[in-house]
């Protein structure tokens, strides 16, 4: 797990580092982190694509580029990363929901609270780190469920569409897929489509639009179940 810490106060960074180290005490190889002293340097780092992070800890009150602005920049590239804001002004927080914030911490930082938030983040990430295996021409392939945009069934084949545009075709059934994937993240909207709710952009009349711009029809049969599943998904994503 890769974590970015962004705060213009080095003391604060030090404090967070200590907390992270104690949180990952049992498996220190599981995580790595990088610290940034300004929003600009973080955005700059991302634009050079040297590495990406799954969790961002952002200070809201930074000079020049503040936490919200930085978060918006991150969201442009990565819709799924977990963003945790750190602030001393709780009354500013509602704005964070525009960028699908995961959670926020209030200064001075409370250790128990941090652990709760991190635990929740790890849970969310591990849901997306679950894997799916399938064989094409006797060769076994593995994908992370978090990378799957949607599944499509075509006759006796399943097509896996990944978020980076790659596609895999193998012999399999919809039922197998539905049994394997987590219903917290995936939902069926059509007898031959199962989508990852992470990548849903918006719902129109009879279709949903994915973040890639692709439209998929929602049939009457699955309409209610989809809405229910998505509500549960939102509750899960926004739970404190």
């Amino acid at each position: 797990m890769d974590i970015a810490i962004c705060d213009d106060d080095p003391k604060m960074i030090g404090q967070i580092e200590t907390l992270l180290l104690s949180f990952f005490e049992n498996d220190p190889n599981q995580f790595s982190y990088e610290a940034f002293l300004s929003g600009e340097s973080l955005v700059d780092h991302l634009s050079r694509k040297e590495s990406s992070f799954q969790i961002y800890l952002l200070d809201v009150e930074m000079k020049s580029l503040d936490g919200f602005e930085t978060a918006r920049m991150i969201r442009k590239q990565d819709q799924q990363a977990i963003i945790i804001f750190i602030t001393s002004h709780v009354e500013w927080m509602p704005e964070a929901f525009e960028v699908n914030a995961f959670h926020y911490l209030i200064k001075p930082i409370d250790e128990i609270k941090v652990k709760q938030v991190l635990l929740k983040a790890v849970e969310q990430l591990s849901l997306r780190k679950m894997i799916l295996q399938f064989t094409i021409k006797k060769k076994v392939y593995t994908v992370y469920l978090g990378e799957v945009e949607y599944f499509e069934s075509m006759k006796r084949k399943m097509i896996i569409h990944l978020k980076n545009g790659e596609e895999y075709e193998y012999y399999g059934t919809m039922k197998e897929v539905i049994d394997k994937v987590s219903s917290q993240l995936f939902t069926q909207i059509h007898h031959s489509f199962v989508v990852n709710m992470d990548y849903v952009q918006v719902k129109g009349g009879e279709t949903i639009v994915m973040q890639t711009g692709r439209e998929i029809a929602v049939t009457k049969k699955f309409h209610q179940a989809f809405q229910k599943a998505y509500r549960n998904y939102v509750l899960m994503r926004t739970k404190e």
Partner: protein
Amino acid sequence: MNLTVLLELVKSINDVFIVSMFFSCYLTSRSFRYWKKHAGRGAVAIFIVIAAYLIRNISPVYLTFGSFYMLVNSITYVCLMYSIGYFFFKGRNITKLLLIFLSMMIVLVFDFLVYLIIQSLFGINYFDSSQLSYAYGGIFASQFIQLIVVFLLRSKRKAPLAAQGKYGFYLLQVIVPFMTSLFFIIYPVFVEQETQDSDARFFMVVTLFAVINLVHFIVFEIHQKLEKENYENLFLVQEFAHREEYYQQMETHQTKIRAIRHDLKNQLLTLITKADGTESQIEKLLEEVIKEEECQFTQNSGINQLLSNKYQRAKESNIQTNFEVKIPLEMGFEMRDLGALIGNAIDNAIEACQRCPQERQINLKLIYFNHMLLLEIENSVAKQVSEFKTQKKKAFEHGFGVKSIQAITEKYHGDMLYESKADFFRLELSIWEPN
């Protein structure tokens, strides 16, 4: 011979009407504005449809197709109906073809049904008869039954919200076609059999009934339109009430703040002059400010006003409230819709709580995430609610809040779900921002 052609034309007009109605159940027709814009296309469309119509009905008179008659009949039918579907309705071609196929099935089924009825009643095969009144009597009887089916289908799929669940509405719509159909079953046997001379009279009767049905249809459409407008007016009245409530709340809020500021100024002035009892006075001042601040649920001022208004009302009725609100400053929904939606939902909850002897509680969640707004309300109830209706005495308000929630949810492509247990009631709904 001439009369056959005329009757054939009437029959075909009925067919066209039935299929158009059938199309309108599943497809959206092109709007009036579209035709205004594309007048040329409209002329071509009408010309082609009329041409198809005439070819279908005139050609059999002059040409004999022999054993190919059925095939030619089917092909011209499909061509005529497809030209209507192609020009006047939006949708995929495959859907249109499927609908035409289905309509042919409906024709066959009801022809057979009418044949069975007449056969068992009078022992006569109308459809095989060479006498005009028999042959066309059977056909018209079948057509008007088809019309009933299509009408019912249409009401089920496209009825305005106001008319849903009203059985009188359906009865009113089908009564005239039903009587007509009945008439055409009975008429040839009882009237034409006595005086076997007058095909012209039969034609007059057919025309008369066609006109009656047409007038009935038009009157009914107008009635339905008025009903819809009426219903929308009700919405407007309600919306207006909500808005007025909102402004009043805003005004009292403003006055309160002004009063506090005024008091604060005076009291601070006195605090400067005398030093004793300062602490208790400061505490008192703080209390007042905090009381006013208690109603800060969200930065979104419109929603905040609405919620604090409802919060006050709940408090007055001794209801414990627990609001969890996570919404941004601005959302892509119309404020008046949100006001009616959230306002009605909380009103219903408060109303239910007020009927509870003890234990009154409302839990509300209002969360925005990725273009979707989620609303969840749980409230205590006195006894199990089996039907999602209000128990208000006034007929005007009866169930109206719920219908407005339903209408707004549908407008924003959302979905609602409610669940009622022994001592609580839960409503959850989601609406999507228009893109």
